[in-house]
């Protein structure tokens, strides 16, 4: 199996709609979400395990859990 093709679940925030309330930050067990400059939430792809707790909590329901390939992930982080 090609390691770089392994699928992982990650949280994605529709940042444009974020109200920066921080509800997601409070429930993330891994501390993988932060509020950037009081404007919007940002997920740290290295820490997120895609558990979906933040998505459930977000009052605006703007977080989705999507499957990504690890390779794509690494590219995005550079």
């Amino acid at each position, binding site marked *: 199996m090609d390691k770089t093709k392994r699928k992982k679940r990650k949280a994605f925030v529709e940042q444009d709609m974020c*109200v920066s*309330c921080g*509800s997601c930050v409070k429930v993330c067990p891994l501390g993988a979400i932060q509020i950037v*400059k*009081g404007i919007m939430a940002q997920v740290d792809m290295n820490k997120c395990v895609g558990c979906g707790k933040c998505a459930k*909590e977000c009052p605006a329901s703007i977080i989705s859990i999507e499957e990504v390939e690890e390779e794509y992930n690494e590219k995005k982080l550079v």
Partner: protein
Amino acid sequence: MKKNWYDYLWIVSLTYLILGFFNILFAWLGLLCFFIPLLISIIKGNKGYCNRYCGRGQLFGLLGGRFGLSRKKDIPHWMKSKWFRYGFLIFFFIMFFQMLWNTYFVFAGADNLKQTVTLLWTFKLPWNWAYHGTFFHPGVAQFAFGFYSVMMTSTVLGFFTMVLFKPRSWCVYCPMGTMTQLICKVRNRKE
């Protein structure tokens, strides 16, 4: 997860609402919920108040979460649109200034003190049991009634949307939340 002292500020928010049933003058303390978030956003340029200290958000989170008073459904799309959020902010402020205007009339002696709490800007509830006179001007009490009305109105609205949608739905259209986010946007753009 480790709990911090500020994770218990919902107790303060609850106490505030209860105190207003005993002596309306406690309503003045609510000004803290206006000035602290504003100062944090202006000085530090973040939403530290919402993200950490706001007891009201915590209270809704608790009632809707652990106490299961929320249907946990998605909020309708229009309620999270910028139109609605900024529109509600403006509406809220117009009503706020109207309240200040009424208070001014009492201060100026042009109007008498009204011992009522106005819910949802419409329903006037008699609240005379919580008024035992004041050492100060009746205008001081009028402001307390007015400010408590604002706090109760937002609690009632927040409670309804908590039940209907997600626990912290109020945070989507909370005027303080919208305003502090706006301040952060403006402030951090300049940097």
